């Protein structure tokens, strides 16, 4: 058994888990944070992307023990309190989702993309940066649009914060 302590969506949590417990299992089963999904067994689909210490991580590829001591943000904690993060809003405004299963991972990857590369993202960059996220419903067309729009709004927020 491993003792893990981490901050999940701003709350500190501690638990004893089996050594092999994956971060995604810890979040879904241990914390009932079922917004993080499992879509494959091979770290290909990205439905399980969360942020660990501010960086996008496929939570099916990390042990809960490895995340011990970290700050973890899941889709549920991205905005919180009924508010929407600009990227969440952009997905809704641009019909960037259909069945919704890949969506949490898409949004978490998209936010990470803006954090890393800044808010001015062209179509080719967005498409290539989505290499680790698979969607079977949308053909990506509206996801790309959503991310461009969400990035723009995030950029305005960043500018405002800088001022």
């Amino acid at each position, binding site marked *: 058994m491993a003792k893990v302590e981490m901050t999940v969506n701003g709350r500190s949590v501690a638990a004893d888990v089996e050594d092999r417990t994956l971060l995604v299992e810890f979040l879904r089963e241990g914390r009932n944070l079922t917004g993080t999904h499992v879509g494959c067994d091979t770290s290909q689909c990205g439905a399980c992307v969360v942020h660990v210490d501010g960086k996008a991580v496929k939570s099916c590829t990390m042990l809960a023990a490895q995340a011990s001591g970290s700050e973890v943000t899941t889709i549920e904690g991205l905005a919180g309190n009924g508010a*929407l993060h600009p990227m969440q809003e952009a997905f*809704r405004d641009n019909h960037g989702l259909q069945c919704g299963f890949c969506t949490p991972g898409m949004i978490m990857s998209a936010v990470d993309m803006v954090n890393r590369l800044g808010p001015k993202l062209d179509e*080719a960059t967005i498409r290539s940066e989505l290499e680790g*996220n698979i969607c079977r419903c949308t053909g990506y*067309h509206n996801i790309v649009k959503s991310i461009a729009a969400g990035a723009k709004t995030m950029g305005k927020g960043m500018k405002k914060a800088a001022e």
Partner: protein
Amino acid sequence: MGVEGIGARVLRKEDKRFITGKGRYTDDHNVQGQHYAVFVRSPHAYAKIKKINIKNAMKMPGIVGIFDGKQLTGDGIGNIICGWMVHSKDGSPMNMGAWSALATEYVRYVGDAVAVVVGETLAQAQAAAEAVDVDYKVLKGVVSAEEAMASGAPQLHPEAANNIIFDWEIGDEAATDAAFESAANVVEIDIRNNRLVPNPMEPRAALAQYDAAEDHFTLHTTSQNPHVARLVLSAFYQVAPENKLRVIAPDVGGGFGAKIYIYPEEIVCLWAAKKAGVEAIKWTADRGEAFLTDAHGRDHVSKARMAFDANNKIVGLKVETLANLGAYMSLFSSSVPTYLYATLLSGQYNIPNIHANVKTVYTNTVPVDAYRGAGRPEATYLVERMMTTAARQLGIDPAELRRTNFVREFPHQTPVIMCYDAGDFDASLDAAMKASDYANFGKRKAKSEKKGMMRGIGMSCYIEACGIAPSAAVGSLGAGVGLWESAEVRVNPVGTVEVLTGSHSHGQGHETTFAQLVSDRFGLPSENIQIVHGDTDKVQFGMGTYGSRSGAVGMSAIEKALDKVEAKAKKIAAHMLEAAEGDIEIKDGEVSVKGTDKKLGWHEVCLGAYTGHNLPEGMEPGLKEGAFYDPTNFTFPAGCYICEVEIDPNTGVTSIEQFVAADDFGKIINPMIVEGQVHGGLAQGIGQALMENATYDADGQLLAASYMDYQMPRAADLPNFQVSTTETLCPGNPLGIKGCGEAGAIGSPPAVINAITDALGHNELAMPATPQNVWAAVQAGGMKDAAE
């Protein structure tokens, strides 16, 4: 109508829960006393089960039961059936072999379930499943349809001699042969439609609960049609009578056909919960299991000949198709390569004589059934590759050959059952050619060639049949069910509205579009309307969502129920306002007497219906109406897709430079959602054309059984799509809807392949057009040029 009615781009009501992680899919549900099921699966394509030894596994911690097929059948659980009877041309019924949810004597594909292990935790059940020792006698299996029919091939089911399930035909063979006799030109093609794995992003899952006190089951499952699941689980598989079985399909993460069928896992989890004496059993497929057990799609091999007269008018079409149905007959498997395929072989064209012969066979592969488009992509691929090939051979422009043969008068009876009710094929072809700047393709090609690249353009003019279907018609063709839809509209005393529908939304946005119908009818804001679906305890019955039927059939049922609600509300209002019923108007949430200032709020009329204080003589209180809608015909979405590609001859890599879609879906309720459906369909069709391939090795191992091996389109593989619509209304249903869910996947593969073969300058290219296949085709073209 205001901003939320029919035709408005209303943002989706359901999105908030999905973007905040509050969607509730089957695996997100957990209940008290929940155990976990893990299936022991065959590693062999074909083998006899000699012995199953569970002794060691049963001793492992947390294991409460391990059950096999003999126990399952011993408890009277019925075999899995195909619900559509197809007869061979000699009149004999299809040769359906037995399929037990857990194999009893033989396993017939890699992944066939042999036993189920029930444990307190998933890890315990997984560990014990590894310890179940199955002794197999491995047999030689067969993977391809051609080999399965060959003499000396392994025989998979005693019912099906030579592995042939049926040998079916449609059309007048003698008349078609006669047409070929007098033809000026005959064009032939041999084509293969590659096997695909549907791959909804949410893997299948089941949470089976058993209440011993009530002898009652509840199943949460990933289903496109929970009522059909309940019916089949009850009437055919004898799991429980319908009144003792509640099926809930909560949020479902995509379906594409793969979640229509009732699979072994759902049956076994229900049965095993009772058998093991536990309150609940959960099973969730991992992606590897999904590849090995979700019904696959396509897998046709066809030979086709098309005959033309001297004026390039088509005089006949002959088709021979071999369809691989896998190891067992899945629920609708027989209908896909027959009534959903060969009935569309007339395409958008006047073809006086058609004859098609379809043979279906068993092989040691995953069962094949309907996947997005289901038969219609196979028909369209054949007809549209044929039209482009013919244009090249006859030396005329591909658009011109199509126009020469377009159907322009409606209704149009084809020689293969379908009667097209409306359409304007010139309009969609014109729109697509304009949007793609078809006329200037030559300039773009020259530019590519300057860079050392090859460039091609291809089109596909598809027609498909949706809105499945008139119950009596499909009944006469062998369907075991009726294909109507039901709806119930419940108006609450405060005027808010609940619509209960038998359709099921798993990405299609019904919670938004169905609400738009109510908004449009009564002028209510969409937040006052709730769509209820996916629960057999709430919705009385329904046939579910597949075949692009929820608009044309599901919404028509809602319209019918709304008609009844409106009529009753008007009667009540007329009585309350002391006016004639014919003068009552319901608009913008108000009920008024035309031409006067007399009016009531919608909520006042609704409250009046429920207080019952002042109702017309003899009227029952309440405002709730139900309807069943049975379509009168199929609907016929049609359109034109144009694809332009650039190929690097050194690597064979094909890039899609532009993709244009011009579709006619009839009336559109929400253009935003319709465009999204087209985008998604195109992505799956382009995936089939360029990369997706469920490849087996000779021993029956599925080589492409993970996302590392089965290539699906990622964002960088696809362009932005240029989509538009033209409109001819469907005369067969109250809204004029045709359906839009599958068109993209149906129309796009031939457009892509026609574009690539245009660039290549020859027709020898197999689908999928992977870089390897394209590179080889470039080389073959070069050699051909050199030889000439």
